[in-house]
């Protein structure tokens, strides 16, 4: 399967199953597009008709070039992964390597668009005790088998509302690293309200990554991200974020925004983040019920797709000016990205990755917390709901019928199980709107890498 598209002045041919990327001229673009559909004589005739300045000999040479790429396995490569997809996922199953610790099901902000229902996950307000958190870390260590790198995300609600426990849990994990042969990598996801010098020092010492929630323009941010008195939080948090990022030397963080129906023109919000001095950026489409006023609409879709293209243009321009910035979804390493195991298996929710509630219940991921039918067990007794876990273990890109003909499937692994469930009622469904956004993001990401690669040449 190939995917041919034009973007940023480049003609790009992506060979799906080999992962190869070719940048081609107009004639080659048309020839490759037709190559599998007709014989060589008809192809040459069609090209001579369209490109009168190109000779027959040149076109025959082009056919030979295409054939050589095909023989080399970098064009029209067959799908050899479908029959072994289950085996591929199995190799990475049965091992837990990451936990999302919900250390606080409460929040000091009251954002109406929050997928976690203002941090409560449709339940009661609660914070995680040290004992529950410690048990969760023990559960992770015991179930991680030979994996050395273990990830723990302090999440909420607002995790800094339970900062003392966060500090104690990090100290406990560090105390067990050496004896267990593990390397903990911690992430803190925060709205910034409670950031102070103590938090900054601790985060810079212990957190591999810090995710900071900022929606961009002040008026956009303050529309949703308000405190319980209804006051916007932008003015309070931006200086704190700037101080924290400066103390981290501008590295190992993401400024993460959410865009909604209110700001499908989110490029302006990214530009605001840049103006504020932030360069490691992420901007996510809102996740909410379709009837929520903040939900993205079909009418928003073309606007958002155009914004993604303009964002790619801006990134290339800034890269060429020596002022690069990172956009999380455009990070793609064509030479050293994920292996086919990862590409087939997906995010690992419910198998490699689980969320832990303040009272120790295990769920397949943070987005399933509060969905009682998906409760897997708890950190004291381990996974007891093997039926649900088996559903997640069987979930891979080839288990989703809608993904069969999609060129982007080895870049998304079939997408987010939670989004699929909320959109279709099945974790093996697909969230079609999200797919449209994802495909555009991948086109932009690959174009950016291609353009940079050509610049270097």
């Amino acid at each position, binding site marked *: 399967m190939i995917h041919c598209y034009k973007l940023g002045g480049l003609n790009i041919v992506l060979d799906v199953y080999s*992962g190869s990327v070719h940048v081609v001229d107009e004639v080659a673009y048309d020839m490759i597009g037709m190559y599998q559909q007709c014989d060589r004589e008809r192809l040459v005739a069609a090209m001579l008709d369209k490109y009168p300045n190109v000779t027959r000999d040149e*076109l025959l040479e082009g056919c030979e*070039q295409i054939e050589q790429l095909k023989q080399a396995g970098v064009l029209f490569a067959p799908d050899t992964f479908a029959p072994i997809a289950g085996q*591929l996922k199995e190799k990475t199953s049965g091992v837990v390597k990451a936990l999302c610790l919900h250390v606080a099901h409460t929040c000091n902000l009251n954002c109406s668009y929050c997928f976690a229902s203002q941090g409560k996950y449709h339940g009661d307000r609660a914070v995680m005790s040290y004992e529950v958190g410690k048990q969760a870390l023990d559960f992770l260590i015991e179930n991680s088998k030979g994996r050395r790198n273990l990830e723990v995300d302090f999440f909420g609600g607002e995790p800094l509302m339970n900062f003392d426990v966060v500090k104690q849990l990090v100290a406990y994990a560090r105390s067990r690293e050496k004896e267990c042969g593990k390397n903990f990598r911690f992430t803190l996801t925060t709205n910034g309200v409670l950031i102070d010098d103590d938090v900054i020092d601790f985060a810079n010492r212990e957190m591999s990554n810090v995710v900071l929630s900022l929606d961009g323009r002040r008026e956009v941010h303050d529309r949703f991200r308000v405190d319980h008195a209804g006051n916007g939080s932008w003015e309070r948090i931006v200086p704190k974020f700037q101080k924290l990022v400066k103390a981290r030397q501008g590295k190992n963080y993401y400024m993460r925004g959410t865009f909604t129906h209110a700001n499908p023109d989110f490029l302006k919000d990214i530009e605001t983040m840049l103006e504020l001095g932030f360069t490691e950026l992420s901007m996510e489409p809102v996740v909410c019920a379709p009837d929520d006023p903040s939900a993205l609409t079909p009418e928003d879709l073309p606007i958002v797709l155009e914004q993604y293209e303009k964002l790619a243009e801006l990134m290339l321009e800034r890269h060429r000016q020596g002022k690069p910035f990172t956009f999380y979804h455009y990070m793609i390493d064509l030479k050293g990205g994920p292996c*086919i195991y990862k*590409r087939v298996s997906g995010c690992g929710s419910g198998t490699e990755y689980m969320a832990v509630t303040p009272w120790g219940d295990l769920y397949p991921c943070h987005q399933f917390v509060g969905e009682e039918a998906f409760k897997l067990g708890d950190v004291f007794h381990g996974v007891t709901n093997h039926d649900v876990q088996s559903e997640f273990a069987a979930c891979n890109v080839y288990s989703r019928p809608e993904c069969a003909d999609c060129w982007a499937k080895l870049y998304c692994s079939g*997408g*987010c199980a939670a989004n699929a469930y909320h959109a279709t009622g099945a974790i093996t469904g697909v969230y079609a709107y999200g797919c449209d956004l*994802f495909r555009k993001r991948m086109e932009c*990401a690959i174009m950016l890498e291609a353009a940079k690669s050509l610049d270097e040449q």
Partner: protein
Amino acid sequence: MKIQTLETKNLCQSAKNGGCGECQTSCQSACKTSCGIANQQCESSK
């Protein structure tokens, strides 16, 4: 006619030598609300 082939990871080869599982879980790093694995780093090729 011009075709430039960029250097990319050989996915078929990675079926033979991949799957160490040491890489980051996809949702952990920043997004939390949408799955994509393309932007994850491979630990063994770092």
